[in-house]
């Protein structure tokens, strides 16, 4: 899935607003704080399940209902789909992702959102994620 290369100002605004709702939700739910995520993984607090559950519920409704109610998105051509596959890469990638997540309690969304909370410690995680994505791309390009 790629999407349009050129963005109209209206589209840029909507994408920014969508990201802002996402970032506000990550902060409000304290998912931008690694300690809370690690507390969930150590079974001290179940909050992350509610965050995931709430987010999946709204997303599920939108992904199911909107393509039935509308011919096309309000500013776009088609409702995209992003089929996921189950193969060795997905298994290994998910396993490595989990090890990293369990080490630091930071995943991609919160690493970015943390910039808006003055949490400069998390720049280490943000840099690590960027380097990891770089290494994965360089390695994938060679094989």
């Amino acid at each position, binding site marked *: 899935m790629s999407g*349009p290369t050129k963005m109209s100002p209206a589209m840029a605004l909507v994408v920014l607003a969508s990201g802002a*709702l996402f970032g506000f*939700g990550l902060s409000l739910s304290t998912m931008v704080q690694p300690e809370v995520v690690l507390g969930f993984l150590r079974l001290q607090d179940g909050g992350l399940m509610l965050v995931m559950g709430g987010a999946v519920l*709204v997303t599920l409704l939108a992904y199911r209902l909107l393509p039935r109610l509308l011919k096309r998105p309000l500013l776009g051509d088609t409702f995209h789909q992003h089929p996921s596959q189950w193969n060795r890469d997905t298994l290994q990638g998910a396993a490595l*992702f*989990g090890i990293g997540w369990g080490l630091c309690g930071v995943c991609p969304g919160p690493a970015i959102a943390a910039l808006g909370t003055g949490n400069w410690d998390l720049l280490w995680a943000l840099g690590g*994620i960027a380097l990891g994505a770089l290494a994965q791309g360089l390695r994938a390009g060679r094989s």
Partner: protein
Amino acid sequence: MDLSILFPYGWAHYLLGGLFIGTGVALLFLFTGLIGGMSSVFSSTWSYLLRQPYFQQARYTGSRGWRLVYAAGLVVGALVWWLGFADGTPLHTEVPTWALLVGGFLVGYGARLGNGCTSGHGICGLGSLQWPSLLAVLTFMATAFITANLMSFWGLA
């Protein structure tokens, strides 16, 4: 059952935050039809700098603009929360620097190899009822659970 055992810090802000996150993903879909996972931006942004064919794939060059704006939105939303709804003192973490850096590296590498993270597989993948995403979520939850508990067992974090 006593909710305070499951949720010692309360539950409403978790649920409300999750609903906000879902609303962001839903709004993106309503207006643009795009699927709003977060980890792709870390590959697509490299395409501005690197000429390697891997990074010059259409799925990255064609999406890097909106993905970067979406990521900027994350920062704006967090800033609104921080300035308007928190006490405005910078957050910080006790997680050691090495764990943030090494953990981050594995998060970035793994999310891109596995084509998704907590939002891509977790929210968008589960939200479109895709079983490969469910398996991915169960896999990373399991390895994260083991890693986080080993870390505290060994007194490393």
